[in-house]
C-alpha cells in the first residue's frame, strides 16, 4: 500500500473582508501519495496556486489542516515551517526565480547553503544535480545566458538539491514551447520521480496530462473531480 505524502482536510482560504472578500479555496480535501505524480488542473482563478501554497507551508489556511507525513504543518512555528519548506518541499516556480547575479551552480546550491552546508561541498553537490538535469556544462554561466528549457532544468536541480520528499511545480510548462515542456516533464517523470517522492504539479496544459498518475480538477475554489491520468485515447 502506497504511503500518504500529503493529506488536505477541509481547506478553506479567503482573501479580503466584507464586500471585498474572495474565497479562493472552499473546503478542499484530497490525498496525494508517495510515488505519485499528482496534477492540480483548472482554469485561471480556480484556486490552484492558492491550494498549492496552502499544502506547501507558504500560505496559512483560514480553516482546515494539512498533514504531511502525518504531521499537521500549520501547527508548527514560523521557523519550523521554514525548516519544513527547506527540508521536505522543493519548489519549481512558474518564472523559475533564479538569481541572475549568481552562477547556475550557485543557484542550485542555495538550498544546501540554507541548510548550512559548507560552500565548496554545496557547489560540488550542486554540480551533481546539474549533471542529473543534463546541464553541468552550463554551471558557471549566469541563468540569463541559458535558454528557457535550460533555466527550467536549473530550477528543477535547485528544487531537488535539498532531497525533498515533495516536489511542487507551478505551471512548469507555461513559459516553454510544447516540445520543450513535454521533454521537461518527461525528464522529471523518468529521472526525478521515485517511490519515495510525491510530485504535485499545478497546470492547465493538457499536453502534459499523459504524465500524471492522477489529475484533480478545480473550479471556483472547489474540487470538481479526481481522475486517473496517463495517455488518453483520441
Amino acid at each position, binding site marked *: 500500500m502506497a504511503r500518504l505524502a500529503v493529506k488536505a482536510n477541509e481547506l478553506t482560504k479567503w482573501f479580503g473582508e466584507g464586500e471585498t472578500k474572495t474565497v479562493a479555496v472552499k473546503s478542499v480535501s484530497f490525498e496525494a501519495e508517495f510515488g505519485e505524480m499528482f496534477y492540480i488542473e483548472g482554469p485561471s482563478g480556480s484556486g490552484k496556486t492558492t491550494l498549492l501554497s496552502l499544502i506547501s507551508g507558504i500560505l496559512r489556511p483560514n480553516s482546515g489542516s494539512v498533514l504531511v507525513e502525518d504531521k499537521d504543518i500549520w501547527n508548527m512555528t514560523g521557523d519550523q515551517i521554514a525548516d519544513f519548506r527547506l527540508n521536505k518541499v522543493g519548489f519549481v516556480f512558474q518564472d523559475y526565480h533564479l538569481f541572475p*547575479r549568481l552562477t547556475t551552480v*550557485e543557484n542550485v546550491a542555495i538550498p544546501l*547553503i*540554507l541548510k548550512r552546508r559548507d560552500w565548496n561541498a554545496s557547489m560540488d553537490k550542486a554540480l551533481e544535480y546539474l549533471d542529473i538535469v543534463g546541464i553541468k556544462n552550463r554551471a558557471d554561466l549566469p541563468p540569463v545566458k541559458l535558454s528557457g528549457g535550460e533555466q527550467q532544468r536549473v530550477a528543477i536541480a*535547485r528544487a531537488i538539491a535539498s532531497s525533498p520528499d515533495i516536489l511542487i511545480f507551478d505551471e512548469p510548462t507555461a513559459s516553454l514551447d510544447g516540445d520543450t515542456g513535454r521533454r521537461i516533464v518527461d525528464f522529471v517523470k523518468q529521472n526525478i520521480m521515485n517511490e519515495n517522492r510525491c510530485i504535485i504539479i499545478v497546470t492547465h496544459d493538457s499536453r502534459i496530462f499523459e504524465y500524471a498518475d492522477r489529475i484533480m480538477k478545480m473550479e471556483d475554489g472547489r474540487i470538481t473531480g479526481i481522475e486517473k491520468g496517463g495517455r488518453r485515447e483520441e
Partner: protein
Amino acid sequence: MKGILKIAYKLLVNDKGKFAALLVGITFAVFLMVMMTSMFAGILHRSSAVVLNIGAKLWVMDPAVNTPANVIPMPDYVLDAVRSISGVKYAVPLYSGGALVKLRSGVYQSVTVLGLDDSSLYGRPALLEGNINDIYAENAFIVVKDAEFPKLENPRVGTEFELNDHRGVITGIAKVTTSGLFGVPTLYTTYNRAISYIPSMRFTAAFILVDPQSDAALPIIKKQVKQLGYLALTKEEFIQKTSTFYKYQTGLGTNTLIMTIISFIVGLSISGQTFYTFILENLEKFGALKAIGAKARELVFMILFQATFTSLTGYGLGIGLASLLITVARLRLPSYAARITYANLGFAFIMVVIIAGISSYIGVRKVLKIEPFDIFRG
C-alpha cells in the same frame, strides 16, 4: 551563516552598477564629512598654536581671555602672587603681541612677537639654526620657520629688519609643532626686549606660565589664582576653552556643522535611495528564498551584511580620498590647515553607521513584508 553571507555578498557586488552607485554615495558623503571636520579640526588646532608651542603646564590669565590671540595684560603683582602660592615650582611671564616689521625690501609685515622670560627662556622653541643664547644679543630675535616664514622674505641668521624704529636681527631660526591660525609669522625674543620695542599698555604680561611642583598641586594653585580674580588653566583646558570659543562664539562651528549635516543628507539620500532600489529589484528573489526555506532572520542578516559591507567599503574609500587630498594639499599649500583626527574618523564612522542603519531598516522592512505566496501568485 557564512555561506548565506557569501550569497548576499555575490548578489551585491555582482550587480556592478548598483554597487558602484552605493559606493559613490557613501564615499562622497564620507569624503565631504571628513574634509569638513578635518578643516575645522585643523583650524581649532592652529588656534591653540601658542599654547602647544610654548608647552607650559599651567596658564594664568585674565578670566575674559578666550583664546591665546586675545590677550588682556595682567599687573606685575599677579606674577609675584602666583610665585608665592604653595605648590608653584616657578612662574614666569609671557609677552604676546602683534607688531609691524619693516623688511629690507621696505615692505611692512605683521608679526606675532612672543617675549620669553629673560632669565629662564621658558617655552623657548627648538632651533634649526643659531644658538639660543644669542637671544640675549643686541636686538636679537628668533624667527619661526613655518608656513608663514616666506612672508618675512626667507630671512637667514643675521638678516636685519625694523620694528617700531628699532633695529632687529635674526639670531636663530626655530621650528615649532604648530603654525598659527592667522597667517602671520612669529618672532621670539626676550620679555624685556618685547615690552621695550612694542608699544604696550600699562600692564604687559599676557600670560603667566606656571610649572607646578606636582600635578596634585594644580587644584590648589587654580583655587588661589581664582581668589586673586584671575584664571588658571592647564594646557588642555586652555586648548579646550579656545576650541569652545571658535566652535560656539564665532559661527565657525555652526557653519561646519551645517556643511557636515548636508554631506550626511547627500550621502544618506544617494545610498538610501540606491539601496532601496536594490532591495526592490531583488524583492522577488528574497521572496523566493523565503519560499525555499530561508528564515526571516537569515534574510535580515543578508541585508545587514550588504549594508554594512557597502558602508565600510565606502567609508574606507572616503577616508582614503580625503587623506590623499589633504596630503596633496599640504604638500602644495604649507599653510593648509586641515588635519584628520581620530575624532573626525569616529564621527564619520558614526554617520556611516547611521546611513547603513537607515538603509538596512528600509530594506529589512520591505523584505520582511514580502510573502512567499506573492512569488507563487506572480
